[in-house]
């Protein structure tokens, strides 16, 4: 509950503070500009929209003002305040971020100021025409300077949250949580990244060992030259041998090889078969092995040809 927190009256002559827990503060008219108007509006948000125009010419053009609006009897009370100036002042007086829970304005507790409240040797708060104003102490009669006790009973119902007022999306707690999570992940990524950056250990060792064994292969150009030469040769020669092996697989009982020719471009073979049935079987085998098969006229012979 906000009322359970200590309420401090903030004025320009206040002393430096040192807080151990969050408090509420009440600002004196030194920090705000007040205006009362009777307006034909029902809700506070409607009145708040008009606040800017009501204070036109009254406020310092350099400040960034915000408005606090509430209804008192028949009229609307508008309070304009410069949150940046207030925060700067609070920091100068020893308030840290998070020390202030809510900000109230002295005008909100006008009914509580039943007597003048002396702020300093020079200034005092008094109520004139239902408005809390600052007057010189000299202007007060000695009887008037009573000992009004300012405490948490002055706390009004509604106030301005400092975090809301400063337009922050994140509260201090959220900021700490989000930042901690992000930094935690950042550290994880950093550690993982540094591990990956360590190089490819065993493969590198193997490569160095190969280089030591075959120094000439350190040159990519040399390697590629040798590889392209032997790779092509290997491919062609293996193809020749494979083709011959496939053809030799077609020789069985009733089949005789009558001719075989192998060169760089093709492999050709002639088979003589003892019957039409065997010739058919060899033909099927030849086609299966992807040879061009043709029959030799006048016999059960077959001619097979394959390109390399």
């Amino acid at each position, binding site marked *: 509950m906000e009322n359970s927190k200590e309420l401090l009256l903030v004025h320009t002559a206040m002393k430096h503070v040192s807080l151990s827990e969050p408090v509420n503060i009440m600002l004196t008219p030194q920090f705000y500009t007040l205006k009362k108007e009777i307006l034909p509006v029902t809700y506070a948000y409607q009145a708040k929209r008009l606040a800017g125009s009501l204070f036109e010419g009254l406020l310092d053009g350099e400040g960034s003002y915000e408005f606090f609006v509430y209804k008192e009897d028949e009229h609307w009370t508008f309070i304009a305040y410069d949150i*940046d100036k207030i925060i700067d002042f609070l920091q100068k007086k020893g308030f840290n971020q998070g020390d202030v829970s809510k900000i109230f304005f002295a005008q909100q507790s006008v009914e509580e100021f039943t007597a003048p409240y002396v702020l300093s040797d020079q200034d005092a708060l008094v109520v004139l025409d239902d408005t809390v104003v600052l007057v010189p102490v000299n202007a007060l009669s000695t009887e008037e300077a009573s000992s009004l006790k300012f405490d948490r009973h002055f706390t009004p119902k509604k106030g301005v949250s400092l975090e809301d007022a400063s337009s922050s999306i994140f509260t201090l707690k959220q900021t700490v949580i989000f930042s901690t999570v992000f930094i935690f992940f950042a550290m994880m*990524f950093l550690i993982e990244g540094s591990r*990956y950056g360590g190089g490819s250990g065993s493969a590198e060792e193997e*490569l160095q060992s190969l280089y030591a064994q075959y120094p000439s292969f350190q040159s990519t150009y040399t390697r590629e030259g040798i590889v392209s030469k*032997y790779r092509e040769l290997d491919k062609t020669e293996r193809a020749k041998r494979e083709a011959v092996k496939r053809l030799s697989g077609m020789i069985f009982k009733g089949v005789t090889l009558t001719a075989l020719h192998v060169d760089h471009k093709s492999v050709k073979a002639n088979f003589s078969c003892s019957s039409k049935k065997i010739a058919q079987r060899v033909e099927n085998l030849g086609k299966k092995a992807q040879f061009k098969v043709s029959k030799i006229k006048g016999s059960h012979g077959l001619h097979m040809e394959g390109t390399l």
Partner: protein
Amino acid sequence: MNWKRYQNELIVLGAFLFMFSMYLYKQHAISSQSGERNDVTQTIEEIKEVVALKKIWADKKISKKVENLKTLVPSSKVKWSKKSRKVTALYTGLRPSELNKLTSKILNTPVVIDNLDIQKTGSSYRVEFKCKW
């Protein structure tokens, strides 16, 4: 603009950017290591392939292996001509078993077969073989 007003957002944004930059660093480290590893692996494979291919096709013992083709059948059936690293051989009157033996030996010898010509003449075979290495 009063930055103090947005200090919470700035702190969160800063932490987020820090995390994001570390994420990019990690991704970069992964991809660069992966690329490096691929390069090393590819080079190793290439060297191994070169070594293997040279071992087969540039073997110093090929000449000796080719010479064996000459003695595989009786010398009366062979006409042998060798010039440098080229051989031209003519085998005549080979029996089927001799042909099998010869062809399988030829196929297992790591030479470039320029020409292998087998003809059946009657019950025997005539083989013309040209190779180089």
